């Protein structure tokens, strides 16, 4: 077993060696510009790009023509939201989303708010689930877009895409989903789920960074977008810019590999996730699961270790690469907005750790992780005044704290 152990697969993933191999020829030998229509260098890579487009489309039940390549999910989300807002502004200026979306969805929505659009943030319950009835009731005459993520990057909770799609299609509203964490991990079919726009990125599925795609539905209904970048008119005018051929080839290969083992890998990851949770729960008290217990990404475990601050815990397990919702790990000094939206108290938000498992995670690594965390939590609780007070029977909510 090699240290440190990488357990942050929800942040990014290593590129699979098979993906690197597939990409290699397109750096040096087949280096053409896919838009060069008048010589062999261009034709060759154009065909490769079209094959990749077809392959990526088919992985989500779409056709290649519906795939617009981008630089990644942030750009895909921006293009979907800003592009729909601009194109359909005569129809209306109302958008529905949720408070636990990725910032790449929330921030463009808030930018639109400044430009006179109205944004409705749906409520989420303690597990991060939306209320479908509230979604249905929130849709108005002037609603142009519903943007709800497939799987949450922090807490792993999955949205019921099919049920959301039924509602939006019946109401004639465009449905965008940020499926960055979900594609290649759980089955997605844009027709069955009635998805109109879908964002994805290669680097969460063992592909390279800097390449992603937006699925844009072409039929029943046809979805239109105004571009947010202007130039050579690539990608049917929706996204100008020379295609990242190496990235696109790697993306297609990475998705193909993920899809080929999607159910067995999900099962394996759920097993590892359960093993880690059970081992920790057996040894530690005051441990809380963030996110939905079963409707969650196979590879995500988000736990709050009561009375232990997240950053100090990460410091105690320096050979584990995990992430925390603690304020101290961000520049803002605010704990995770996702956990806050769930109603997790700020004290427990400060105590949260996200474990992200993936293709190269082993049982041995999970067991090592559990042992390390148990030792560190116990040690930090020995020096936690809160743990001491709780053990003495003090109700912490009755203490008058001097906030600073």
């Amino acid at each position, binding site marked *: 077993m090699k240290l440190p152990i990488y357990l942050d697969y929800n942040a990014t993933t290593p590129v699979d060696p098979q993906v690197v191999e597939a990409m290699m020829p397109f750096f040096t030998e087949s280096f053409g510009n896919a838009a060069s229509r008048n010589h062999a260098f261009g034709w060759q890579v154009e065909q490769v790009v079209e094959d990749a487009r077809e392959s990526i489309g088919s992985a989500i039940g779409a056709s290649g023509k519906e795939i617009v390549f981008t630089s990644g999910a942030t750009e895909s989300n921006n293009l979907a939201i800003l592009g729909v807002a601009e194109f359909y502004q005569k129809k209306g200026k109302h958008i529905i989303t949720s408070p636990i979306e990725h910032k790449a969805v929330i921030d463009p929505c808030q930018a639109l708010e400044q430009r006179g659009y109205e944004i409705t943030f749906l409520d989420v319950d303690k597990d991060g689930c939306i209320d479908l009835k509230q979604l249905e009731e929130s849709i108005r005459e002037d609603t142009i877009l519903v943007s709800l993520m497939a799987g949450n990057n922090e807490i792993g909770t999955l949205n019921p895409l099919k049920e959301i799609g039924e509602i939006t299609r019946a109401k004639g509203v465009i449905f965008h989903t940020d499926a960055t964490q979900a594609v290649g991990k759980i089955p997605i079919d844009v027709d069955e789920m009635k998805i109109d726009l879908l964002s994805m990125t290669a680097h969460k599925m063992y592909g390279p960074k800097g390449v992603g795609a937006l699925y844009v539905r072409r039929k029943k209904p046809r979805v239109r977008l105004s571009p947010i970048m202007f130039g050579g008119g690539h990608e049917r005018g929706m996204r100008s810019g020379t295609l990242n051929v190496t990235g696109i080839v790697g993306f297609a290969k990475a998705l193909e590999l993920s899809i080929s083992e999607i159910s067995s890998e999900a099962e394996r990851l759920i097993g590892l996730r359960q093993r880690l949770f059970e081992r920790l729960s057996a040894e530690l008290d005051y441990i809380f699961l963030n996110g939905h217990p079963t409707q969650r990404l196979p590879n995500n475990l988000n736990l709050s270790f009561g009375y232990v601050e997240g950053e100090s815990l990460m410091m105690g397990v320096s050979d584990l690469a995990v992430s925390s919702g603690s304020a101290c790990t961000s520049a803002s000094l605010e704990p995770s907005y996702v956990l806050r939206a769930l109603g997790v108290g700020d004290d427990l938000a400060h105590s949260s750790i996200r474990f992200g498992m993936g293709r190269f995670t082993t049982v041995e690594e999970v067991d090592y992780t559990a042992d390390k965390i148990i030792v560190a939590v116990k040690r930090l609780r020995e020096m936690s005044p809160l743990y001491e007070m709780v053990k003495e029977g003090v109700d912490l909510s009755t203490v008058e704290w001097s*906030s*600073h």
Partner: protein
Amino acid sequence: MAYSEKVIDHYSEPRNVGSLDKSDNSVGTGLVGAPECGDVMKLQIQVDPETKEIVDAKFKTFGCGSAIASSSLATEWVKGKSIDEAMSIQNTEIVEELSLPPVKIHCSVLAEDAIKAAITDYKSRNQD
């Protein structure tokens, strides 16, 4: 974020972790911070009633590595000092000693507050 060697040292081997009997009149207890802010420090001092010298100090901290290090250092520094001398410890001295980055200065402020709160508690129990 990279931690300074001294922060790592105090975090790995914190000095004076523990609790003193808070009902003992020679003990002063300071509890500062709030769980929702991500830092709570409990710092206790034991004072010699004759010499007014701090003979022992203990702490427990819920907080990041810098908060733990700041309170650990604070207990080291107050030991052997008179309560008046301890009262004059400034957070800036803690910042300097531990090389805390700007984003962690509040940890040192909290440690200074904890020292002052413990001394205030001791004084209120031992009014002449």
